[in-house]
């Protein structure tokens, strides 16, 4: 990936407000024009633009990720895919052959959107756990040791933290796997 294109990914990764504003100013009007050309409203275009940047952010976090096209080209591909998907969901509209042909790397992008949907599913299921369980798991997923978790949550021992983490993790995984949408997102 060239340093020129790196800069946009770094803006997203580093929460660089000036940089994100530059992305907004430079690319939103262009993406909006393209999406309007395929029937998208202005409000939906904004939603699609936001979601596409979030997908690119989730991709950019992976250490092996490399942009194989310019940032703009990638953003347009992701946005088009998101729009077609949104139309399908909202209006039950199937892709025409023409629309299909404009989505060249759809498989990859579909996997990225699925991952984002899974993340959101995890978040919603976490919120269904008791506050105690949420705390233990948040600390655990944040790479805290069981000893540290026990100290921070005033649990009697490392073993108690281990037991609690085990119960909560099991509950969370059952909630996720029990959701009707989970299988479709794999």
């Amino acid at each position, binding site marked *: 990936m060239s340093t020129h294109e790196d800069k946009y990914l770094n803006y997203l990764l580093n*929460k660089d407000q000036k940089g994100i504003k530059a992305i907004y100013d430079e690319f939103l009007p262009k993406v909006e024009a393209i999406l309007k050309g395929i029937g998208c409203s202005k409000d939906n275009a904004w939603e699609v633009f936001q979601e596409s940047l979030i997908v690119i952010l989730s991709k950019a976090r992976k250490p092996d990720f490399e942009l194989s096209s310019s940032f703009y080209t990638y953003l347009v591909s992701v946005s088009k895919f998101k729009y077609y998907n949104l139309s399908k969901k909202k209006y039950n509209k199937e892709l025409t052959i*023409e629309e299909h042909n404009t989505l060249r790397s759809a498989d990859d992008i579909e996997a990225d959107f699925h991952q984002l949907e899974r993340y959101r599913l995890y978040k919603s299921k976490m919120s269904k756990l008791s506050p105690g369980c949420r705390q233990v798991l948040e600390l655990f*997923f944040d790479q805290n040791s069981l000893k540290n978790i026990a100290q921070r949550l005033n649990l009697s021992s490392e073993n108690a933290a281990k037991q609690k983490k085990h119960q909560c*993790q099991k509950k969370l995984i059952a909630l996720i796997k029990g959701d009707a949408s989970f299988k479709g997102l794999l």
Partner: protein
Amino acid sequence: MKITEDNKYELIDDYISGKMDMQASDLFESILQSNEKLSIEVSLIRELHEFQEFSTQESDLKSTLNQIRKNDKPKGHLLKFLVLFLIAAGLLYMFLKTLSQDTDRSNNAIAMVEPLEIVTKDGSTFKDLRVMQDLYNSEQYKSAYPYILSYLQSNPGDLDVILAEGISLMKMQKFSDAHNVYLQIEGLNPRVKKYKWYMAVNYIEQGQNEKAKTILNEIRSEQSYNYINVSSLLETLK
């Protein structure tokens, strides 16, 4: 290695965090290969470790974007001023329109030039792929043109890049050459009728509105590429 409901998550955690010794890890991996359910759980737990950090980053990005958008919207008195300005501009436009029919009517159509998306198709065989894309996407058509020709020598059937050749020629005001490129695409009988839109735009650029209208009407009846914008474009061509 015996995996039970009681020790499963402990083993998965040890495997993911790298606490498992190499021998146990190899054994665990061989079990994963034949146990799809377990394999899904390992991926799920791995993602659970990732999603939390991502969740914070996502919220930050969303709030930054929403803040930018909020600041970008005109407010209060500025909005009133803008409305008055737009009314005045509209009246001026209508006045000028009656004086002259030479208004540039094609700007909207030209704005619909899409970026090239050829990366996944070509892989890495064409070394200047990125240069070509970036020049074309930044509307430097004259500079992109030689790269496009060079690419087409090794990929003569890539319809999108042939189309980009036509668009570049059109932008360089070589309308007749551009038209021939669009005819070449038509001859290849593609299922995607994108070239038709640009053929119409090419006619508009030359002031041949009647020919453009014929093609635009075809696009509308076939509901092919950009048909949604045909009506508004036809309106400007009256």
